[in-house]
């Protein structure tokens, strides 16, 4: 039986807790993200979604709990180490590198580039250029897929809000991540582009990319998430598929119906 109905978990969060002063932002959160799926993380404002994202990606230190990525304990590691392990996050408000061109934004992403060492940049110019060519080819492919290729030489700061979101997703993929953590990718994006982004994410999932998605728009969540984790008051309230969750009493009262 080679049916991969239950792919293995690639990201595992166990008993995560984090307080800011007296405020418990994360109480006790455990969930897993399976490889090659889109997992949604939803919940009302203040449920602790952003805190969970920051905790997983190393931008805040947790008080308790374990985060594992592909079997490695990444709890409380520095953000760049977690990224190098293969977890790439986006930010709630698009954070493009403004005075770098679109193409340069893409070219920053690959890990451990030869020419990132000043010494190699000076003495191994040929090898560095060869590597740059390889990365350029990949960057061009991604930009063409996301329809950003015509804007490649534009400063990223000059893009529209939606284009910045696309660039952020493309840049994350450029890093060949194991897991992409998207913090509200559809926030402030018009309905047409939302549909487009939705299409990209589903398609990338089919190609084997794993997503953890924080999203407020429940129809988006229903359309693209294979599994949904509902947070409320810093704890997991329920999980399952979105259409099931819509029926669940406590989810409705905490989130949907209010």
């Amino acid at each position, binding site marked *: 039986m080679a049916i991969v109905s239950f792919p293995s978990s690639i990201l595992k969060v166990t008993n995560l807790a984090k307080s800011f002063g007296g405020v418990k932002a994360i109480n006790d959160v455990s969930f897993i993200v399976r490889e090659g799926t889109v997992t949604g993380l939803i919940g009302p404002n203040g449920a602790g979604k952003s805190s969970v994202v920051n905790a997983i*990606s190393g*931008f805040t230190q947790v008080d308790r709990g374990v985060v594992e990525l592909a079997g490695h304990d990444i709890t409380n590691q*520095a*953000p*760049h*180490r977690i*990224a*190098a392990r293969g977890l*790439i*996050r986006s*930010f709630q408000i698009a*954070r493009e*590198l*403004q*005075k*770098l*061109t679109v*193409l*340069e934004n893409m*070219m*920053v*992403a690959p*890990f*451990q*580039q*030869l*020419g*990132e*060492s*000043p010494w190699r*940049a*000076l003495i191994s*110019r040929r090898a*560095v250029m060869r590597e*740059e*060519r390889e990365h*350029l*080819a990949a960057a*061009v*492919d991604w930009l*063409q*897929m996301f*329809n950003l*290729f*015509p804007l*490649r*030489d534009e*400063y990223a700061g000059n893009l529209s809000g939606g284009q910045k979101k696309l660039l952020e997703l493309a*840049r994350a993929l450029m*890093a060949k991540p194991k897991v992409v953590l998207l913090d509200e990718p559809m926030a402030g994006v018009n309905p047409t582009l939302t549909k487009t982004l939705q*299409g*990209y994410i589903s*398609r990338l999932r089919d190609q084997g990319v794993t997503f953890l998605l924080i999203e407020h728009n429940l129809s988006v969540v229903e359309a693209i998430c294979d599994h949904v984790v509902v947070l409320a008051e810093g704890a997991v309230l329920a999980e399952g598929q979105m259409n099931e969750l819509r029926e669940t009493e406590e989810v409705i009262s905490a989130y949907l119906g209010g």
Partner: protein
Amino acid sequence: MSSLVFYLLTVAIFFCIYSIYGWGLNLQFGLTGILNFTYITFVAIGAYFAGVAALQPGNGGIGGQYILGWHLPFPIPPIIGGIAAAILALLVGYVGLKRLRSDYLAIVTVSVGQIVWTLIGNITPLFNGWDGLAGVPQPFNSIFQLDFNHYQWIFLVICILFAVLGFWIIERLTHSPFGRVLRAIREDEDVAAALGKNVFRYKMMAFVIGSIYAGVGGALTIAYIGAFNPSGFTTMETFIIWAAMLVGGSGNNRGMILGAFIVPVLFNEGTRFLPSTPGNPLLAVSIRGMAIGLLLILAARYRPQGILPERKTIFRLDGLQQGGEVGGDRVVPQ
């Protein structure tokens, strides 16, 4: 006539040295966004260590007292000057770059400048205190045995060689993946970290490499003048290098050359020709400071990116895009 040639040679030498200073500061601020408000302190450390590396042992007599006195031949003293500045940068960077935001780092650098200045002035056994070092031997002149007027030509050639090498290195670094990471850090540290870049390490490298430029520039300065004391590294000096960078164009190494010409050469040297005012000998000095300040204000108002702004990186893509025509859209997933 010969005095004019002498003067122009002096200006040309300082033009080279200020360009070297500028590239180092540009790497720190223009590329990486590190606010170093005491750049001149790294110049001074380079100058002092290069000085005591080149001088005979101090005897406490006429030459004063100082450490080392290794009497090493050129070009070893500039190397020692560069290393000394790099070590100071490591120490300051470890305190200032690890956790502090750039504006707090700026405060740390100002404090470091004051501390180093006061210590060097007051601890006479280090570098002869407020009197400073003097009689530093001229590079290679034990071989050439030229008088100072003719020796200027030799020293100009030395400075040009250093400047060419310095420019080559800084341009390579700027336009490499290393430089790209530095610019990414300047734009948004969190994004750089989220893409797997060790922000502290890169900032430290930029800080140290920039300080090596300062140190080597300082070593050339003391080799040329033959003397150096705490009046040579006051806040005003840092201000002049900053002004040169901002006017010329931060993020652009060619802009730095232009800035080094406009600010230290035209404004700082040019104002020396103002007629001296009887009874008020400091007037020209004050006017010089005001003129540079005014230039900076005008640049900030009318050309904040500098005369030669940072250049856009355009990649050559020949043979890379699959869609045929440049700009042709392709593969739109539904």
